[in-house]
């Protein structure tokens, strides 16, 4: 097989890893970000945590594996983005550290529960926002020089288009967490989640339309992309579906609908990028799946590793989710 086949395969595998990551860690990060709105006392906070505790670290492994796969398959894109977005990523790391330890600390450090509850929420909220900002930037284009080095600053990252994508990502993650709360938890928390869900659907719809408008305005070259519009259609349908399911008290279906909306968002992101991995403000310096990839041998071996490993991972992940089905009371 030609190397470009593998380069394409890896574009899709990384897309797949990030899609699953956003669906699974999406509900963790989302419900934790919403905790101040959903839980009014320590008992309810415990319910929120219990709903994700057995699975959150497995969920974060999708990010770790996605990051490592990017490193292995497209080291030049990994190096450019991670070094270029240094301060933003440090912020993500600080946040992820706190969110990882905050549940254990909340549970055992009873005197400072208020503090750890906030660490849990802020530690989840920041990455939820910044992931989207980062994605918005690589779609929109960042200043990259001939040597593939980022030449902007921290403030380069805060342009309107990436910020809107960041807010859209955040609102999608919040909705995902909200549907999880409604599905997984009983009592007042679920009731509040159901009430909040419609507001989040409106926020999502508004930000989505804004993002589409900005894309048409700023990135005319990708407007003609059909799969992108297909993704947009799926997104609109899934968002409406979440609304209908919430109205009819079908909380699991609402969660699934929200999950499908992530698939459609990633289809749009992929369509907007392909075959680029990182768009440069100077088109000739775009990092693409062709100029940023590892060699054919590495891509091939990694593909074999993924072929053997991923079905097994999916199988036992589904099994364990089944073990933990049922509501937290």
């Amino acid at each position, binding site marked *: 097989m030609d190397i470009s086949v593998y380069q394409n395969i890896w574009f899709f595998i990384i897309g797949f890893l990030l899609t699953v990551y956003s669906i699974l860690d999406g509900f963790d990060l989302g419900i934790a970000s919403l905790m101040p709105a959903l839980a009014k006392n320590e008992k309810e906070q415990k319910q929120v945590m219990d709903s994700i505790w057995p699975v959150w670290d497995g969920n974060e492994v999708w990010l770790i594996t996605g990051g490592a796969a990017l490193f292995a398959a497209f080291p030049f894109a990994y190096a450019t983005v991670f070094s270029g977005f240094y301060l933003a990523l440090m912020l993500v790391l600080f946040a992820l550290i706190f969110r990882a330890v905050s549940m254990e600390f909340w549970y055992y450090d009873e005197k400072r529960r208020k503090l750890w509850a906030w660490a849990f929420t802020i530690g989840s909220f920041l990455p939820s926002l910044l992931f989207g900002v980062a994605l918005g930037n690589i779609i929109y284009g960042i200043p990259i020089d001939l040597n593939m*080095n980022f030449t902007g600053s921290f403030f380069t990252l805060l342009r309107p288009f990436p910020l809107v994508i960041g807010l859209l990502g955040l609102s999608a993650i919040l909705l995902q967490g909200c549907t999880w709360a409604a599905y997984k938890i009983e009592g007042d928390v679920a009731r509040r989640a159901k009430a909040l869900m419609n507001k989040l659907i409106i926020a999502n719809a508004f930000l989505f339309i804004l993002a589409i408008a900005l894309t048409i305005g700023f990135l005319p070259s990708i407007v003609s992309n059909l799969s992108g519009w297909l993704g947009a259609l799926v997104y609109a349908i899934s968002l409406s579906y979440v609304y209908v399911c919430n109205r009819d008290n079908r909380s699991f279906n609402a969660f699934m609908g929200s999950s499908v909306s992530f698939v459609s968002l990633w289809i749009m992101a992929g369509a907007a990028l392909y075959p680029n991995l990182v768009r440069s403000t100077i088109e000739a310096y775009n990092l693409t799946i062709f100029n940023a990839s590892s060699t054919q041998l590495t891509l091939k071996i990694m593909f074999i590793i993924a072929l053997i490993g991923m079905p097994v991972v999916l199988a036992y992940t589904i099994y364990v989710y089944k073990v933990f089905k049922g509501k937290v009371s």
Partner: protein
Amino acid sequence: MDVVMLSRIQFGLAAGVHFIFPSLTLGLTLLVFLFEYKFYKTNEELFKTISTFFIKILGLVFALGVATGIVLEFSFGTNWAEYSRMVGDIFGAPLAAEGIFAFFLESVFLGVLLFARNKVSKKVYLLSAFLVFFGSHLSGLWIIIANSWMQTPAGFAIEGGRAVLTDFWAAALNPSTLVRFIHVIIAGWISGSLFAAGVAAWYIIKQQHTKEAQNILKTAIIVFCIMSLVQFASGHLHAVQVTNLQPEKMATFEALWQTQQGAPMSIIGIPVESEKKTYFEIKIPKLLSLLAYFDPNAEVKGRDAFPEDELPPVLLPYFSYHVMIGLGSLFALMSLIALFLLLKKKLFTAQWFLYVLMFAIPLPIIANEFGWIAAEVGRQPWAVYKVLKTVDAVSTVVPATHVLLSLIIFSLIYLLLVVLFITILVKIIKKGPQAESY
């Protein structure tokens, strides 16, 4: 300070703090599996209580491992972008494989151990304990593969200014992978078993949870004794490998300034790099030659055999290496005493030794840290031995001020994490094995 030094300190801090947790995880998952197996076989509640206790601790240790581990994976890109470009074709794959084959496994099934005792059958629960054990060790293997490739790179060629993979198995099973893997795994088992033994010793001293404590102590001390002695052999093999494949590193560990036949082994001393001299040195004649080549008169290369700009600094690797060996020797001595007491059936009553076990809990972690510092600083000035220098590996676009800022914040966060980890660990231990979890 320049950006290279700041990035090195930051990575060292991140990896050093992280390393506390996976090494404990290795030992704890072994103990959990052993006790789960005993419970499965005998159906005695006692073993279940003990295992549940260690699973609780494992939950805490693992959360800190995840929190500190993700920093490292990001760091190759954030701080070492040139490194990532130069060797990403080889170095990224083991990290990805670690995620796919190992880290998913341990994370997902740790969830089962922590929260599904009553939701799955006994068989599935035992299997989960095994998979967490297996996954964490497999995880260690892939990380050691990646790190060993930096020590003794193989299976690659330099093409167009970057290292490209030519032979996956040669790169993965490079000449130092297996011996270093064994060395690190055993170090983890020593850490976990001495931790468990020390906790049990504390209970026995306090006359609390005596039944559980005696059981824990017996199992843990057996693991500790065997592994402390085996570690001598593995450490020896590793030292021989370093002497052969990274001779300037061994010359630095031993502060062997001149190449010589019948080289001595340095036991203690103060090496001064600028004077190429070791003060107050106690050494055993010909021992280094004997150990490295089974010949007391064999020639061992000294630091003078290598170009100055390809030599590591002396003081830190020398000191770290000797602290590690000193502690390793102490563990061997302790295990001999423990075996003696065990045979005399005095292990549970020898108060002084129980105190020794208790206060020795942090020592394996310290040995691990110094062993790792010796290995990594001893590799300098190379990031990848003889392939890429550390100064050429750093991100060129990140200003020193940014790294300084992140380093300060990391230092504060990690200080907080370690303090809280110890506080909570003590709390869990004080509550005892019977306390309910989550």
